[in-house]
């Protein structure tokens, strides 16, 4: 029988809610970080690098490596592993530094 983190922790979270990644609905549980919710949905990448556009997602999961940066509710460079998911949060794949609009 599959042992999920939730079973291992004996967690009984409140009802699930929805966030979106690039407009596509993703289910999240109260207390989950954005990265955890994306991982639980089988999504591993939500950013491309500044040099070469390579895919990136969560690596350390504890806020140190800055690999999991995402645009969350319009704000770029949020660490998805540290931001708690909230109902209706709009997560957008971040391209590079996420500030392309500011260039002059």
């Amino acid at each position: 029988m599959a042992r999920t983190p939730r079973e291992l922790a004996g967690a009984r979270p409140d009802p699930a809610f929805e966030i979106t990644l690039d407009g596509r609905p993703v289910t999240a549980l109260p207390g989950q970080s954005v990265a955890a919710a994306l991982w639980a949905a089988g999504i591993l990448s939500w950013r491309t690098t500044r040099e070469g556009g390579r895919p990136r997602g969560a690596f350390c999961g504890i806020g140190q490596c800055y690999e999991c940066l995402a645009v969350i509710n319009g704000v770029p460079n949020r660490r998805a592993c540290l931001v708690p998911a909230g109902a209706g949060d709009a997560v957008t794949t971040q391209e590079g530094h996420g500030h392309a609009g500011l260039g002059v």
Partner: protein
Amino acid sequence: MRSASDVIVVGAGVVGAACAYYAARAGLSVTVLDRGPVAGGTTGSGEGNLLVSDKEPGPELELALFSCKLWQELAELLPRGVEYEPKGGLVVARDEPGMAALRTFAAGQEKAGVTVREVAADRLPDLEPHLAPGLAGGFHYPQDAQVMPALAAAHLLRASGAEVRLGPGEEVAGLLTGPGGAVRGVRTASGALYAPHVVNAAGAWGGEFARLAGVLLPVLPRRGFVLVTEPLPRVVRHKVYGADYIADVASGSAALQTSLVIEGTRAGPVLIGASRERVGFDRTLSVEAVRRLATGATELFPVLAGVRTMRTYAGFRPYLPDHLPAIGADARVPGLLHACGHEGAGIGLAPATGRIIADVLTGTQPPLDIGPFDPARFEPGGSR
């Protein structure tokens, strides 16, 4: 005897690296020592400014103009990794009196060989589209440039071919002298190293090194904080600073001073400086300094209000009381040379300093008058 070379350079910052580079190019064998890593001191804390714009006519400006030419040459010779960018500087004034002061300053510089152009308020957006509206105008200095200082130091060292010894075991504990007091080398934790010439390129710690050699060179640390933003596209094109920066650089006050200096980097982050205070080698975060930098930066570039800073750090400018570096042979100790005390201008002045040191070592006439940089000038009773 571990080894012998023609010259030992103490300090693997950009000035030490430039001394090694030009000395090696003059045919000397060079050993570089540092108790820390390459660019581990002030070089690694700097913004990499190669400036003529902030210097009043005089010996430092002459040195800066010469050095800027040498940086242009080095940019062709060194790998692109040094991130040399001839981006130019832009000094802005908030009001008409500020502009008038800049105009007078610029007129003097122009006579001394600086290229400078007045920019009317309505033309500022052409140079810097994100600048706050309402400024009185500015002055554009196309000769100002930038490098990535740590990489510049590392590439200069590599290009020098010098023997580089790094780490705690290489900390200099004393100067070895022979009969008559002439330099024979240095003593480190790992043993003795012999050379007839030793160059003090210990930056902010150059005063301590001078003490080891038994001479007075009153280098004091002048602390500065830098704020580093998250990586951005190019939002700031030039090195942009406020008119009060020039006055702060020239001041001798120990109290906290902040004046705005803002520039982008090739890697993306925007660097925000500059604070100045003399508090010894204290790295404690000064919230007041950082608050003033952040406030000033968002006033000058409102776009930065919506940008995060990733970190802040402090560095120590090697300050000498007359704001001039110590470059050249020390008449008090035959064989001892100094190349330190460049305050906030060490990256810019490094190549000229290295060239002068190499000239002195080889008995060549330096290309400019080095009298004002005499390391013995602080000796009570005057230089011998």
